[in-house]
């Protein structure tokens, strides 16, 4: 019987592969810290630079300034206009992308070893001497406004924004990072320069590099790239005061399929129970095809293409959140099933079999993430911004393994709160939802 053979093979082989990621922590002569993984087998370098803060630094009336500023970084710097910059970048066959989100601004660059010097010069100019010239500001403002208009008719975006407003109240997390048509239209060049000075300072910078570069080369590179930035930036926002009304908020929108988002209080990464919660949620909603929510709503009933729940850890708030989409006629049934699984998990926790499978998956999948210079550089950046140490990579699986059945039962009982589980539905759901 092959089924037995497969199962035993699974158990026999259940020693997870271990990713050998040798992280060096460096400090440059200029006092900037960086994490490096040397990988000299391919002649290129993946470099990540992240700044804590992001769009949450925007004042309410300047909402969107950080996003617009970030989008303008590739639109001219020093003597270069946008087209000169594109030419310089393309001639070096390098890539550089600039991104902002509520907790940060990041630069992801990739360049050939042989172009390390000019690539560093180019990045320095972009970060320390952006032009923000009037022509580029108007052109990119138009792109941002188009994106805001599109979001205004996108059920997913509408649902996400409505849930954020309901939960975060007056905190910057409640506001759209891109801004609104009104705030973005009113932004001046001075606002953009202020956002740049506020967001991109050395007191909040994190660096990771993976690839064909030595420690000395990297520290010299980052002193060059980041040396021109101000020492301090804008004050970071305080913790969010979260509120969860429970129940279902419906936003009427004509669409064949309703979008459902939900959230309740989460748990801090620093909490001793974090890993118990993480394993619990793997069984409840995070384990792609294997989770209870997926099994009940997709596999057994075919009500959705996908449903997921995840622990969201922002700098200043922790949520247990999730979402799905389903026909308007199935919204009530789907919400009922989510609530039912919430209560069941709260009351009973997980079975030994579920716990074992979740742990084997989580410990086995973790090293597989480290599968490329770009991927590793990005993971190392995320770890630094989440306040982790490099040895987390080696110790993380033991923390998952240490979670017991009793831990999960206790944490599920404490954390899961059906009364606070708050839903937003964008669509025209049928039937009683509350």
């Amino acid at each position, binding site marked *: 019987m092959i089924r037995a053979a497969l199962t035993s093979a699974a158990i026999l*082989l259940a020693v997870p592969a271990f990713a050998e990621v040798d992280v060096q922590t460096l400090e440059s002569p200029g006092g900037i810290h960086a994490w490096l993984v040397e990988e000299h087998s391919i002649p290129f370098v993946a470099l990540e630079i992240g700044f804590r803060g992001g769009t949450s630094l925007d004042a309410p009336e300047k909402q969107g300034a950080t996003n617009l500023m970030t989008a303008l970084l590739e639109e001219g710097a020093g003597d270069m206009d946008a087209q000169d*910059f594109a030419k*310089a970048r393309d001639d070096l066959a390098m890539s550089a992308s600039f991104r902002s989100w509520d907790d940060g601004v990041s630069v992801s660059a990739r360049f050939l070893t*042989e172009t390390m010097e000019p690539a560093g010069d180019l990045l320095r100019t972009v970060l320390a001497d952006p032009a923000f010239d009037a022509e580029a500001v108007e052109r990119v403002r138009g792109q941002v406004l188009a994106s805001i208009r599109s979001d205004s008719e996108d*059920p997913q975006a509408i649902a996400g924004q409505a849930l954020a407003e309901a939960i975060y109240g007056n905190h910057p997390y409640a506001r759209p990072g891109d801004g609104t048509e009104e705030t973005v239209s009113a932004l001046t060049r001075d606002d953009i320069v202020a956002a740049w000075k506020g967001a991109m300072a050395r007191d909040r910078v994190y660096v990771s590099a993976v690839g064909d570069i030595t420690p000395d080369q990297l520290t010299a590179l980052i002193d060059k790239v980041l040396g021109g930035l101000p020492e301090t930036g804008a004050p970071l926002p305080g913790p969010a005061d979260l509120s969860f009304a429970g129940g279902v908020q419906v936003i009427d929108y*004509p669409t064949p399929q309703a979008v459902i988002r939900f959230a309740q209080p989460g748990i801090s990464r620093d909490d001793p129970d974090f890993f118990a919660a993480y394993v619990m949620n793997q069984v409840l909603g995070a384990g*792609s095809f294997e989770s209870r929510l997926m099994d009940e709503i997709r596999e057994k009933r075919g009500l959705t293409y996908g449903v997921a729940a995840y622990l969201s850890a922002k700098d200043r708030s922790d949520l247990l959140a999730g979402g799905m989409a389903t026909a308007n006629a199935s919204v009530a049934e789907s919400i009922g099933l989510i609530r039912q699984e919430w209560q069941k998990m709260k009351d009973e926790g997980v079975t030994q079999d579920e716990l074992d*499978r979740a742990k084997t998956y989580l410990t*086995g999948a973790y*090293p597989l993430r480290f599968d490329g210079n770009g991927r590793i550089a990005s993971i190392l950046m995320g770890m630094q911004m989440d306040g982790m140490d490099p040895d987390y990579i080696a110790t993380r699986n033991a923390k998952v393994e240490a979670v017991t059945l009793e831990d999960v039962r206790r944490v599920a009982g404490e954390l899961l709160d059906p009364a606070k589980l708050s839903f937003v539905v964008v669509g025209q759901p049928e039937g009683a939802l509350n």
Partner: protein
Amino acid sequence: MNMLSPLRAVWPLSIALAAALPAAAQEVTTFTLENGLDVVVIEDHRAPAVTQMVWYKVGSADEPAGKNGIAHYLEHLMFKGTDLLEPGEFSRVVSANGGNDNAFTSFDQTAYFQHVAASRLDLMMQMEASRMTGLKLTEDVVKPELGVIIEERNQRTDSDPGALFGEQRRAAQFLHHPYGNPIIGWPAEMSALTLQDAVSFYHDHYAPNNAILVVAGDVAPDEVRRLAEKNYGPIPANPDIAERQRVQEPPQLAARHLDFRDPRVAQPYLVRSYLAPERDSGAQEEAAALVLLSDLLGGEPNSSVLGRALQFDRKVAIYSSASYDATSLDDSTFTLSVVPVPGVTLEEAEVALDEVLQAFLDAPVDAGKLATLKRQYRASEIYKRDSADAVARQYGQALTSGLTVEDVAAWPQIVQDVTAEDIKAAAAKVFDARKSVTGYLRPAAPEEAAAEVSQ
């Protein structure tokens, strides 16, 4: 600011070095089992992980008439049990081994893949082999999955006016060829699909002599061959499977215009597509010229011909782009898009687009820009080595689109050999209005949209 001078000083050096870059990426080994299963092994020993992909040379364009969506529905049902595996057990075992698995369906191919620790390759092959010809389906698992794909269509297509617009444009582009049907299926046909439809499609197309096995990661080719022979070797070939022969497009003689209106559209845009030749085995030159043409015209907006003309000089567009599907079994499309700035109508944007295209055809190709693009392609051969999975997908897609391993290996040099004249000739040929579809996507009042639907 003196940053441009050091850069200029370095350019000649970097050009010289880049020219000397090796064209080869990872070690790639290929062989064929006796039952006809083609195997491609891509070695990358940096992490102890492996990806197994099995690609079948069958996609939505191979569906029988009236059964649109069956290729994709079957892909979902492939997780629902075999002679040896219970429904859902495949993914459960992958997860229990710390791996991830998924699958996708396209016009020309259907692929299944797992990403796991390298030590689990044998187990993955055991399971994948068991569903190559041993699928076992029952009504109780097939029924809910029909609901899943209907919700998938709702989510991906019906909830997104841009996706509906794309579906309508594709249907207008192909007069006769099945590329005009959506992969997921037209709603009425997909809702009527049955277990028997899935089973007969499966028996017609799933066999080792219609599949490509791609293994990428921390593996040795000899070991992959041993495991492949052990797991896939015993599966007999299906002698009834022949080379795919699809209906071909009749001559396209009329430019088509679409006016798609939807109340959910907040940002209007236009898309123009042209019927275009694809990469053919042993004859990839024209496709290579079209690849460079699409990059020149509409790659990076800040340096492309369309971007500079429409976004910078004339300031009529928020965004513009060009794209080309080079890898395809039959003729594909070359596509141009323009998102106009507020105050510029779609009609005005289309006039501007045509003027820019004409100006491009009338002037020589910018030699400096072409050299830069080629340098970027050369560098991409180095960057590609960072992702064995990307190389695996490249081989899987090519080998299920009528190309050979030799064609894949030859492609980078063919791109390097394209001349400015080749690009001009390819452009003059592909921009044939009679083979074009121009679509406008714009907002409409709900009543207006409802009235149009009921007509």
